[in-house]
């Protein structure tokens, strides 16, 4: 079979063993392509384990700037015998299988519809290095060097990257460049480079990347930076994958930006709590006391925080929670991605509760929405939950550069300071709806010697914060909280509308990391003559734009990465969608980021066959996943 032809548009996947240092080598590979000006989106598919298990690194190269997973693998670089069977099977016809041919390949791994490229990686390492650790580490660098030749990666870029990577440890630069050379030379000498699938420099601004002034960044780091810019001074957390790097990054930036020059002391406090309940308690206590505080966690943590979230909702204390979602339920698949905490977050805690949710889709939004979250939390005096996920949080994404408007000022919400209290003649009522927007005024402890003190509690109280069991006072308070939630609709980020070329009654709604593959799927379908308007939801509660989109479309595909169609349920509950069937669930939940192919396939099936093929059967058709 003829080798597949592709320039700047293919999927390459690395099969490694975790804990062998492949991550940095693979990262360098992706970054080099990025620096060539070619859109790239790398993804780690790693095990919930520290060392010795199969791990994959999938890199999509897309001329057009599609950043979601495409599905399928054109080039498989297999450095892990454990997973070879499924890795061979995963290559698309006409694709390449790159492997270590120090030992000959077992016949069972031979397919006649793909092309094999053997690199004597182990042999080279044995020859070149004596130390076992070096043999392990440089193997990765060597195959990157080889790929540079095979795929036509600008070698100088790789060299620069090595230098960047080892700033401070300069003595490591030369040996690494040497290892790159080893691979590069070998490939040049033994194969006709480049392959039919390769890269070419000089890329013009891609269809989906405004201009190529892009950055490569993971969402957790961006969110952390957002917390820094929002002036968060307190972070309380408990480690959990995939949210851990949020606080790690916050720590790193604070060490750089928040040390008091005079004293060398910290203008921030990060506390590793004993668990998630405690982490949320600390966040609530700090916000109550006038500091901007946040925490980051994942599903299990959200479950544990639910009692405290109910308290913050009812006692009206600001709080910012970053939920980097992973595959549930329970411990589930801790290193796989999903969007399955939507209902758990929106209705967290017993009794009548509702929480404000934000749905970032890019690192840039992780940054801007985190900044925004602190304003919203203080303006609305309630928890704001940022619904990120593993794919967005832990993978590097091409993203427009982060922006910050220096003229922007924090909104610290309705707080009466000493002067305001001093000037006050009427009695201070912590829960009085003075402005008719459902948002009362608060005071910080210690604000004024004789005015403004009040009793914060999770029990029912009157407008003056006094305990009461009077049913009317309780109802007034609960109704005000509803009014406040109405007010929130005007304040939260509005959804993004994208209309099809031609007028259509078909609509699609999605959010977060489902956006990239969804937009791509919509284009695939458009080429087939299926036109669909799209609305990317960016927050809950849903505002009028969402209502309008639902009104104006007869058939709305709700695309999300969970089993139960949680966003669809939320839309049913919280919008005035007249007819239920109008919302058609398009679901993927195998823990890997959904691919454009799958989405397009499901929508196509629905429109042509009238049903969505169940995911299980789809899965078989699909390439094997980790």
């Amino acid at each position: 079979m003829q080798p597949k032809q592709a320039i700047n548009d293919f999927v390459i996947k690395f099969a490694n063993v975790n804990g062998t240092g492949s991550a940095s080598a693979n990262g360098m590979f992706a970054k080099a392509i990025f620096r060539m000006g070619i859109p790239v989106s790398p993804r780690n598919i790693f095990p919930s384990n520290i060392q010795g298990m199969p791990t994959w690194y999938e890199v999509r190269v897309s001329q057009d700037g599609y950043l979601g997973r495409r599905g399928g693998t054109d080039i498989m670089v297999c450095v892990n015998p454990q997973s070879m069977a499924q890795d061979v099977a995963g290559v698309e016809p006409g694709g390449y299988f790159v492997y270590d041919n120090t030992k000959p390949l077992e016949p069972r791994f031979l397919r006649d519809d793909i092309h094999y490229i053997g690199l004597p990686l182990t042999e080279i390492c044995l020859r070149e290095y004596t130390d076992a650790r070096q043999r392990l580490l440089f193997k990765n660098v060597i195959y990157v060097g080889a790929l540079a030749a095979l795929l036509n990666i600008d070698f100088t870029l790789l060299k620069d990257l090595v230098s960047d990577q080892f700033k401070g440890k300069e003595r490591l630069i030369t040996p690494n460049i040497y290892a790159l050379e080893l691979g590069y030379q070998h490939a040049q000498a033994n194969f006709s480079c480049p392959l039919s699938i390769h890269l070419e420099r000089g890329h013009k601004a891609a269809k989906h990347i405004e201009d190529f002034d892009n950055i490569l960044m993971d969402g957790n780091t961006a969110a952390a930076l957002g917390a820094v810019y929002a002036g968060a001074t307190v972070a309380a957390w408990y480690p959990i994958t995939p949210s851990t790097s949020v606080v790690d990054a916050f720590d790193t930036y604070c060490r750089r930006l928040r040390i008091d020059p005079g004293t060398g002391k910290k203008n921030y406090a990060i506390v590793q709590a004993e668990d998630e309940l405690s982490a949320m308690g600390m966040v609530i206590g700090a916000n109550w006391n006038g500091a901007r505080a946040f925490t980051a966690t994942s599903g299990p943590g959200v479950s544990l925080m639910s009692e405290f979230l109910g308290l913050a909702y009812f006692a009206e204390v600001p709080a910012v929670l970053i939920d980097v979602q992973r595959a549930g339920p329970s411990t589930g698949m801790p290193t796989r991605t999903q969007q399955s905490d939507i209902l758990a977050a929106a209705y967290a805690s017993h009794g009548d509760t509702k929480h404000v949710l934000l749905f970032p889709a890019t690192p840039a939004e992780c940054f801007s929405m985190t900044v925004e979250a602190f304003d919203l939390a203080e303006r609305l005096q309630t928890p704001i939950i940022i619904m990120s996920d593993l794919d967005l949080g832990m993978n590097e994404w091409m993203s427009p550069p982060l922006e910050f408007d220096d003229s922007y000022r924090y909104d610290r919400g309705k707080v009466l300071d000493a002067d305001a209290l001093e000037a006050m003649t009427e009695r201070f009522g912590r829960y009085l709806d003075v402005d008719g927007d459902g948002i009362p005024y608060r005071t910080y402890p210690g604000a004024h010697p004789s005015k403004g003190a009040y009793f914060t509690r999770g029990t029912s109280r009157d407008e003056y914060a006094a305990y009461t069991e009077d049913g009317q006072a309780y109802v007034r308070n609960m109704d005000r909280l509803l009014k406040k939630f109405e007010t929130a609709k005007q304040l939260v980020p509005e959804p993004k509308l994208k209309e099809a070329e031609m007028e259509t009654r078909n609509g699609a709604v999605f959010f977060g990391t489902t956006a990239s593959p969804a937009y791509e799927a919509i284009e695939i379908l458009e080429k087939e003559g299926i036109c669909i308007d799209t609305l990317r939801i960016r927050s809950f509660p849903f505002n009028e734009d969402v209502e309008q989109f639902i009104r104006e479309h007869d058939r709305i595909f709700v695309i999300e990465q969970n089993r139960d169609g949680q966003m669809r349920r939320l839309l049913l509950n919280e919008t005035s969608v007249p007819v239920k069937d109008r919302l058609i669930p398009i679901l993927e939940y195998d823990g890997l980021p959904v691919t454009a192919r799958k989405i397009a396939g499901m929508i196509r099936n629905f429109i042509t066959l009238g049903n969505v093929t169940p995911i299980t059967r789809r899965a078989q058709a699909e390439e094997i996943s980790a």
Partner: protein
Amino acid sequence: MTYIKPAFRHPKAPVNDLGWTRQDYEGGLSTLCAGCGHDSISAAIVDACFQLNIEPHRVAKLSGIGCSSKTPAYFLSGSHSFNSVHGRMPSVATGANLANRDLIYIGVSGDGDTASIGLGQFAHGARRNLNMTYIVENNGCYGLTKGQDSATMDTGSVNKKGDRNLSTPMDVARLAIEVGATFVGRSFSGDKEQLVPLIKAALSHRGFALLDVISPCVTFNNHQGSSKSYEHFRSVKEVMPLDFVPVREEITASYASGTTCEVRMHDGSMVRLHKQDSDHDIEDRQSALQAIAHYESQGKVLTGLLYIDRDSEELHDQLGTARRPLNTLTEQELCPGSKFLDSINAGLR
């Protein structure tokens, strides 16, 4: 109850150095049962704050859930208060303290709130040496839910149902010493003479100050056979008398003479103790545990200042937080601005 009405003031009532009367330190009317030990503790807190010339608004009161946890409503109505959720006050107090290290934090909890559902948070709060005074109003039962045994109920004690308790009691004072609290005292709601100076000392301490105050529940755990009844506790308590000498006052008596010893607090004030047991070195953990065990072996309960580490590192010292309260930092001080962001972007290309 949102602020103190000066109108209330009785013209001739004695005032402290701030010109406040004791009444200015009181709170709302208690809704607890008549005779509940908790009310005496509230009164002792009022005395302590009044006598220490603390400005009420510089105090933040925190509590969990329970009859005991209701009491912040009954003292210092001029202070902000946070009645959180059951057993989770320590984390809320931690957050509050991180935001503003300059307030005085008084936490009130119950034995259920602290030793059962709240044990983890309590222990970790103590371990972090959070700078606060943490009072456990210990009645050996769950008052607000009608008298079930709590984890501090002593072995052999009989509850209202008539059941004899067979499990080992949690001694929150010993536990606090174990996990890192730097000021640990035990007292009795019925012993104002000891309780008030002990609270004053706790408030003057820099770090986690735990007071385990036996506070009988007259409705559910004050009967014959209960080890937490007024009568029984009076009979078993071994009192270590102590008085508190504020900073400015002349210190007359000389240093450790026999069983009387004086402990200078971090803020310069002084606690004078009259120990029965001269081997008890209150600045040594192991010795403190030993002393508690010693009396226990005689069927006694030692009350007083059990252990103190006078110059320990409180949480902020451990974290290296700046002196200025974090909640006073301005946007200008906190926000790096667009310039820095450009450098970030540059680094990501």
